[in-house]
């Protein structure tokens, strides 16, 4: 089956990626904007995510209720996500119904109303979303670790934003943010599925090309200076379970070391799944850290992974501490494993295993059109589609020496943050 792939740019600067996939009568369309929480400064943290919410509140042509109804009636699926570096909107529809999704995205690239009354109820919805997050010990700990890791760079705050800002930002702040960043030359559109490329491109041109380009807002990017010395912190809260999170500094996805680090992650903590839909599910019970931390009962569970970002971010290992152990004992066991991977070459078999795991994850991810469409635009946010297409190829080139080198370079205790969630019981004695 020939899957035609096309990449082009409209005259207004909107980048278009199209991939024909004729396996199911479905089409998935994604529009990506280069704006995320890293583009925010206080007192407007969380504004990109709130703008994303308001993008579901309608335009003069498509009031919220009309659209929701039209897409749901056709059996479509739609959603949106805000991340550190980007915001994205997608619809997956039966192939003969995709037009409404294309019209919607063209329309809300420029015509959203940001009605004052809608905003006031959406503000409390997002405050409730943050309160739900705060219910989770891991959110409280993760937020503290991230803040400690980034003092200068705007990766400092969580995507959802700080409560103080959520309570005070105004409708006009949001509208200004929307108009500044939602311009076609700051966006990428990826569509995959059961269509003819020529027809699809013509329709996209018809709907999107008249939207005027705007000045591309500069990205906030104050580089985080080198960390000189380990940072330790603790967060207290309800519960009985101790969690420790160890965050090392990792390079951006476009860095050549990214692939050796992917192999290293797979060996240490099990394969990370980069798919947004499908994929995953491969356990980590024979990873090096599981064998030395869970099997030896320092912790009852662990996970590791990095985020794929534009600027350097973090590789985070999360440990759920065994009830009979202290967090420092678990950390010492972790350090022993890290020293081992820095001292000795890993075997070629271990690398081959990591590659097979990645191959399986990509195969699972190709079971659905939505995930294949996701990759078109997602990869453009931090590199380009070729990055995705050549992922396994680049993993195949990784040698035991590469793995040792990146382990020495990136897993340094002097440049990490160690955070521990200290449970204060169930509050019955209060």
């Amino acid at each position, binding site marked *: 089956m020939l899957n035609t792939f096309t990449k082009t740019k409209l005259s207004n600067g909107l980048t278009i990626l199209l991939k024909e996939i004729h396996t199911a009568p479905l089409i998935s369309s994604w529009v990506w904007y280069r704006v995320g929480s890293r583009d925010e400064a206080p007192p407007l943290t969380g504004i990109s995510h709130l703008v994303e919410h308001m993008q579901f509140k309608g335009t003069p042509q498509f009031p919220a209720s009309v659209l929701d109804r039209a897409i749901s009636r056709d*059996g479509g699926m739609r959603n949106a996500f805000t991340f550190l570096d980007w915001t994205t909107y997608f619809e997956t529809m039966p192939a003969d119904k995709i037009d409404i999704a294309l019209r919607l995205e063209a329309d809300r690239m420029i015509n959203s109303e940001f009605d004052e009354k809608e905003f006031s109820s959406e503000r409390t919805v997002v405050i409730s979303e943050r309160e739900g997050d705060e219910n989770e010990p891991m959110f409280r700990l993760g937020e503290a670790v991230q803040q400690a890791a980034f003092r200068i760079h705007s990766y400092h705050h969580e995507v959802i934003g700080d409560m103080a800002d959520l309570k005070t930002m105004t409708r006009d702040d949001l509208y200004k943010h929307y108009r500044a960043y939602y311009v076609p030359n700051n966006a990428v559109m990826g569509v995959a599925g059961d269509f003819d490329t020529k*027809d699809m491109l013509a329709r996209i041109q018809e709907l999107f090309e008249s939207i005027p380009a705007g000045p591309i807002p500069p990205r906030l990017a104050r580089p985080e200076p080198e960390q000189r010395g380990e940072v330790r912190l603790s967060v207290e809260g309800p519960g009985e379970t101790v969690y420790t999170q160890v965050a090392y500094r990792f390079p951006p996805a476009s860095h050549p070391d990214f692939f050796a680090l992917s192999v290293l992650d797979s060996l240490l903590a099990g394969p990370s799944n980069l798919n947004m839909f499908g994929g995953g599910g491969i*356990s980590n019970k024979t990873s090096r850290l599981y064998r030395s931390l869970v099997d030896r009962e320092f912790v009852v569970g662990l996970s590791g992974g990095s985020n794929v970002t534009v600027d350097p971010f973090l590789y985070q290992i999360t440990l759920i501490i065994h009830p009979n152990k202290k967090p420092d004992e678990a950390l010492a066991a972790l350090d022993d494993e890290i020293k081992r991977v820095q001292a000795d070459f890993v075997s070629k078999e271990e690398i081959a295993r990591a590659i097979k795991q990645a191959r399986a994850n990509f195969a699972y991810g*190709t079971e659905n059109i939505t995930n294949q469409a996701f990759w078109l635009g997602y990869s453009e946010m931090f590199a380009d589609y070729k990055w995705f297409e050549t992922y396994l190829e680049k993993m195949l080139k990784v040698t035991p020496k590469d793995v040792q080198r990146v382990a020495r370079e990136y897993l340094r205790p002097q440049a990490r943050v160690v955070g521990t969630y200290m449970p204060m019981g169930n509050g019955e004695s209060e």
Partner: protein
Amino acid sequence: MSKTKMNSLPGPEDIHREVLPNGIVVLARPNFNSPSVSINGYIQTGSLFDPDDKLGLADFAASALTRGTANHSFDALYNELESVGASLGFDSGLHTTSFSGRALAEDLPLLLGLLSETARQPVFPDDEVEKLRNQLLTGLAIRMQDTSDMADITFDEILYHDHPYSRSEDGNPESIKAITRQDLVDYHHFGFGPRGMVIAVVGAIEPKEAVRLVHRAVGDWKNPDQRELPQLPELKLLDETVKHHYRIADKPQADIVIGTNGPLRKDPEYMAASLGNSILGQFGMMGRVGESVREKAGLAYYVYSSLSAGIGPGAWTVSAGVNPSNVKKAGDLIIKELKRIVKEAVTEEELSDSQANFIGRLPLAFESNSGVAGSLLSIERYDLGLDYYHRYPDLVRSVTASDVLEVARKYIAPDRLAIATAGP
């Protein structure tokens, strides 16, 4: 725009069903769009067997199956799986213990071999059982801090009071501590067997080959001691609204679950209830309750209704996460919607919206191998017929607004609700 006629709904022409001599039902449907394959299925045993003082036994056993077999240690078993990017797991429910696995098609024989070993020859090594016990206890400690989980558990305790469905399948710290290795061995011996077992294989493999491989793996399984699950008693309905609050200190958000009992999956009125549920709290931005509690009042990030219909009496619930100071306000709005759905018929427009959604979403539901496998299992479990998805659009369209009103009135009594909350 579509050029594709493939991937039509599963039906008798492409679902292969075969019964092995020992009674195991094999369902298979090919999909060569990706080189992967999913297996999903169930064995006729579950937590209905749990003694009251050893609640969580079936769940403990299901997790322990993969902790070591006659031929593989825990580490050796997972080494086989993880080295090829495959996965395999068991999960215990009330009536059945389900299993699921995934692999590249080239590794299906390996996956089925390990399924057979873990289901038939687990050895429950002492040290692994103790490690697992500590993991389960930590899981319970985490659950006791989770407002959503605890609201659900509290709801089940109210709705099902003296019925076996009131019991938590994960057990509690005391019961998990009371379970011995011998309990696991005994339970496995009488619970696990081929009778009533169903397995679906979906993905890049010809159905005949799938059946051959399943046959090779489990075709010779016999267990003359396999027991029948205990019979379910009748559910005694509430005679007034019952409210319980489970306190968890220092949480910025509380969870609410409000609801009642619902139909069995096999009941003919299931489809009307399911459409009613869509209108109440699923369609678009979470239906009527989404419109009222989230869109208009701005009280919750999530609020939705769900209908869980299975072998025994299901539950029909509305759930929401709200600030502790808004529990009453949100609860009142939810109850108002429950009253409305039993007072007057849904509009033709609402009904036709949800009907169109139910039919239109099928191609998406059947995209992934595990999605197809899950549907094949439902067809088998509830005796829906291999042509179910061909008949499905007509079944959906045949429901009228008065059918929805009737089924809502049968189950939802706004003055006899179970109301559970968890939070500060």
